[in-house]
């Protein structure tokens, strides 16, 4: 080992604490660089898998390719695999959905079943072209049931236009044309039903046929037309060229933008570029933090070693030798720090993802897509290179500075104390308050400011990041939780036949809590209206109406009504809860009215909740509108016929949406057909405040009758329930419903908690990453502060000794250091807090788009930030001065090689 390197090693060993802190700094920076690239690679991988799960694993979808062209394209070496779908034909079925009168029988190859989102709910995939699987919405949406193993017979034909559309032909991509289309051809074919599968993503919502899948047994046939889903070995490189060279251009084709995006295909790089911008910002922040840390560590080491350099160069060391000595230090620190940092970064993300894996699985309903750790090698290399460059730059700049001065200057160690700049004078009051020690501290700060810049910038940066990230989390959590009128049920199954519901009720009731079902009274398009006479309405309600409806005209009504017939058992529960008399409702003709509501009202900047009762206490009857017939092609609106609110009589206006009306000052269409709104008495049995499960508060009055009082025609009920474990409850209910002969799929119910869970999951993930990021950046800052403070103090060892020999007491020393801490802390807060508040405000503006919120500072975070800043500074100071206090001043004065 040459002498220069030995000197370097010895110096590093001698300054053990600083060396260790520097290595920790390098580890932290590398770890963060690595973590950022790894998390981005992992997220892209996750999104990619999610995209494949939802819409299939392909890059290009070519519609209706001729067999020979499809064959040619499929054999191209650039193509990794092709999912092929052959439309065999449409067959009419007895569908209740007027827009979807067919099944569309398609034959798919093996690749298709593997790569496309075909998810069985029961049974198995078809093995021959005589077997089919049916989509579950054929039953749930179309009402066409089939049993497993049943032989279905289809009369297959193709869709052609008639009348206006004569000569046209249609595929799944073209919506149903009603009287303008018919099926041509009638090939009878029988299939065995071997399974059911979820409604597929590749069937458009407007498609006129339920996609029934069978197996494609033959190869490409020249006369047939195939839908081909190509996946390329290297889409980035080959896709455009492939489209140009093959006959794909002659057909209608679509690129799978989602997947291409996540695979980094440059034409669809908006998401990846968002991710990359995000990464760039993070990189920049880490870069600044790391440079500050590593640079200051090196600049301190170099300025300490300036004398050493001077001695070495006066004894004949060349500039190159000195430079290489600094580089040796940088390299050896990097050699230890960077590999450890990479390991720590990957390890950290792996652990984080492991703990978050359940959270990620909840992101896409029903799809248990795990979040895998993807290590992106180029990303890691970039991270390592960035860290290395940081170290080299940090080492090089101060060493250059040291070499610019002559050896003698270096030996003399006239340090960079500057007299210029602001005067460092202290007022008399200041001197009174803080004494000579305070004056000294202040002069140290103001005359060697350069040395403190790193400390203050790191502290300020941590404050900004910490407060801003906390603000970010706070606003995000708020906007997630700010959805008003949250539903008071967990799951709803709409549109169940009421007779079937009656049969299933008892069994379902054992599985769930608060089971309720309603038949919603079919009123007119705009519902039923309630007329509340002025003597019956509360002042709060009257004020609310005047506030919301500017002209004071309660527009159509004075209240919309939501009339429901509640499942008898649930109704009895309601009666019991409110201590009411059963005979008023069962056999009687009274209704329970929910009188209390809470309505959020938004203005430009505020959101206020209006809470009030509609009716005065004790009101026992109001008027409710009778249903009326709306002429075909028109829609209805109600308004007063007189000069304003409450004037004249309530009138229905039938409006033609194609006609253009002039409106009078009460917003009534002039010239529309009108008809007086007729009312009948609504007898109120009780006014209650709480809303039963499944109902919502709003600007309307909820009116509840028992279901047994229902006389209307519609017999569909909406079922609502709560449950501790919704997934289990839904499974149970599905089984009961299936046994009752109702086909259920993921789309036949709505799990409210799923949304909540998903939002919470997202919040959790973002919180984990933001706080993790803050924690690491804060660690870097702490290391930084510790490093600069200890070294600054160590460099002043002689000054301290001098002051002590001159008669400064220990108390005085403490006062001086405390005051220096105050300066550090307050300066960094003075810079950091305003920026932090500004950034928080920007975040507030962004969050405000989603939900109206008042601007509020994350006070807890600010308090924590302030306390932490002072703690970090004081602890570093305490540590470094503590070492000096036991110094013999004489030894310190003698010690030249500090």
């Amino acid at each position: 080992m040459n002498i220069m390197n030995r000197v370097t090693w010895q110096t590093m060993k001698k300054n053990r604490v600083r060396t260790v802190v520097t290595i920790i700094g390098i580890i932290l920076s590398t770890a963060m660089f690595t973590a950022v690239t790894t998390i981005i690679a992992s997220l892209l991988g996750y999104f990619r898998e999610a995209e494949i799960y939802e819409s299939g694993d392909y890059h290009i979808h070519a519609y209706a390719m001729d067999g020979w062209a499809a064959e040619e394209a499929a054999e191209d070496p650039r193509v990794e695999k092709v999912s092929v779908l052959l439309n065999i034909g449409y067959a009419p079925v007895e569908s209740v959905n007027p827009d979807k009168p067919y099944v569309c029988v398609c034959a798919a190859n093996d690749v298709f079943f593997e790569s496309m989102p075909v998810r069985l709910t029961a049974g198995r995939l078809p093995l021959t072209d005589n077997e089919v699987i049916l989509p579950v919405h054929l039953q749930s949406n179309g009402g066409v049931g089939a049993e497993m193993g049943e032989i279905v017979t289809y009369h297959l034909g193709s869709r052609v236009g008639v009348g206006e559309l004569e000569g046209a032909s249609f595929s799944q991509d073209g919506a149903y044309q009603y009287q303008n289309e018919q099926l041509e051809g009638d090939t009878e074919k029988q299939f065995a039903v071997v399974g059911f599968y979820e409604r597929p993503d590749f069937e458009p919502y407007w498609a006129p046929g339920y996609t029934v899948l069978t197996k494609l047994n033959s190869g490409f046939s020249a006369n047939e037309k195939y839908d081909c889903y190509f996946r390329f070995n290297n889409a980035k490189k080959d896709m455009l060229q492939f489209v140009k060279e093959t006959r794909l251009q002659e057909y209608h084709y679509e690129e799978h933008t989602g997947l291409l995006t996540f695979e980094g295909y440059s034409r669809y790089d908006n998401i990846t570029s968002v991710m990359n911008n995000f990464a760039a910002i993070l990189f920049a922040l880490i870069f600044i933090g790391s440079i500050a840390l590593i640079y200051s560590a090196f600049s301190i080491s170099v300025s300490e070693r300036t004398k050493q350099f001077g001695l070495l160069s006066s004894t004949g060391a060349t500039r190159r030798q000195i430079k290489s000595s600094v580089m040796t230090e940088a390299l050896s620190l990097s050699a230890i720090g960077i590999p450890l940092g990479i390991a720590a970064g990957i390890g950290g993300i792996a652990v984080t993802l492991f703990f978050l894996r359940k959270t990620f699985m909840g992101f896409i309903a029903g799809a248990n897509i795990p979040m895998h750790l993807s290590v992106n090698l180029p990303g890691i290399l970039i991270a390592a290179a960035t860290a290395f460059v940081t170290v080299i730059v940090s080492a090089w700049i101060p060493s250059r500075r040291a070499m610019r001065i002559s050896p003698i200057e270096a030996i003399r160690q006239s340090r960079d104390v500057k007299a210029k700049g602001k005067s460092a004078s202290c007022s008399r009051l200041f001197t009174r308050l803080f004494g000579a020690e305070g004056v000294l501290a202040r002069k140290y700060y103001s005359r060697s400011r350069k040395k403190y810049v790193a400390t203050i910038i790191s502290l300020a940066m941590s404050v900004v990041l910490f407060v801003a990230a906390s603000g970010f989390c706070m606003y995000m959590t708020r906007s997630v939780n700010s959805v008003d009128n949250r539903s008071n049920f967990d799951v709803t199954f709409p549109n169940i036949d009421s007779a079937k519901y009656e049969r299933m009720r008892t069994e379902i009731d054992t599985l769930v809590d608060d089971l309720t079902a309603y038949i919603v009274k079919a009123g007119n398009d705009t519902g039923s209206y309630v007329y509340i006479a002025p003597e019956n309405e509360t002042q709060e309600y009257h004020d609310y109406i005047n506030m919301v409806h500017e002209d004071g005209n309660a527009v159509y009504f004075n209240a919309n009504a939501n009339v429901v017939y509640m499942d008898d058992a649930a109704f009895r529960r309601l009666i019991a809860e409110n201590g009411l008399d059963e005979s008023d409702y069962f056999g009687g003709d009274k209704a329970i009215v929910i009188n209390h509501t809470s309505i959020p009202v938004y203005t430009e900047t505020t959101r206020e909740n209006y809470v009030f009762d509609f009716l005065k206490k004790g009101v026992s009857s109001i008027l409710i509108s009778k249903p009326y017939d709306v002429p075909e092609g028109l829609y209805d609106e109600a308004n007063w016929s007189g000069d304003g609110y409450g004037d004249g009589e309530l009138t229905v206006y039938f409006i033609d949406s194609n006609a253009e009306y002039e409106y009078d000052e009460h917003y009534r269409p002039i010239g529309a057909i009108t008809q007086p709104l007729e009312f009948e008495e609504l007898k109120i049995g009780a006014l209650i405040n709480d809303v039963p499960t499944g109902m919502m508060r709003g600007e309307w009055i909820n009116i509840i009758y028992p279901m047994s009082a229902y006389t209307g025609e519609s017999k569909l009920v909406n079922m609502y329930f709560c449950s501790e474990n919704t997934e289990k409850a839904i499974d149970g209910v599905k089984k009961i419903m299936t046994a009752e002969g109702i086909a259920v799929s993921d789309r036949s119910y709505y799990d409210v908690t799923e949304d909540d869970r998903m939002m919470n999951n997202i919040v959790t993930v973002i919180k984990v990453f933001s706080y993790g990021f803050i924690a690491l950046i804060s660690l870097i800052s702490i290391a930084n502060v510790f490093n600069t403070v200890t070294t600054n103090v160590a460099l002043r060892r002689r000054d301290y000794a001098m002051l002590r020999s001159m008669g400064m007491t220990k108390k005085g020393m403490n006062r001086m250091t405390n005051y220096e801490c105050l300066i550090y802390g307050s300066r960094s807060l003075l810079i950091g807090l305003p920026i932090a508040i500004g950034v928080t405000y920007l975040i507030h503006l962004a969050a405000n788009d989603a939900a109206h919120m008042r601007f509020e500072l994350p006070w807890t975070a600010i308090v924590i930030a302030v306390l932490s800043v002072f703690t970090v500074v004081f602890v570093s100071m305490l540590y470094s001065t503590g070492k000096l206090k036991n110094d013999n001043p004489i030894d310190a004065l003698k010690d030249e090689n500090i």
Partner: protein
Amino acid sequence: MEILRVENLTKVYGKGENEVRALDGVSFSVEKGDFVAIVGPSGSGKSTLLHTLGGVDRPTSGKVFVNGQDVYAGSDTQLAIFRRREVGLIYQFYNLIPVLNVRENMTLPVLLDGRKVNEQRLDELLSVLELKGREKHLPNQLSGGQQQRVSIGRALMNSPSIVLADEPTGNLDSKNSQEIVNLLKMFNREYDQTLIVITHDESIALQAKRIIAIEDGRITRDEKLS
């Protein structure tokens, strides 16, 4: 009038085989207005003696009295106050605070004592030390001789009972050295300032009123010059 009395001063560094007796039973006394030069080869214990006199290095045994007061009898704080008020130290390497300017360095002991600066004294010192016009300069803007003059000013600012100087000219050329010695002599003469100076420069020692020679921690010679 006796201003300083040293009784049986001993200072031992290290233990066992490594034990070094830097001072070994040193006793002497100094009158007010005296100018004492302490001489001896390096390692003889003269710096240790000076530091124990100045209250910066506690002796292993023995006593130091300044103005009849036992210096090491009190607490660390009392010792610090003693240093601040009774002693002025001048070092070979000046040891000025780099961030303080000339004026601030000189007035530091007064400020540390929480007292008001005697502007008249400061002004007088500045002109005697030929530092007028340089009050705002920082140490790194001054020559070695000027820096040493600042440190002399600092030592004298408080009108201490004794001024202790440790090789005050060791870092200066002969011209600057003689200037410093002249200044010290002048202060001794004009202000009756008691001075104890360590030196191994015979020509400086001969300008003192009294020479104490030390060897191996013991006084080997104590002679008055006329």
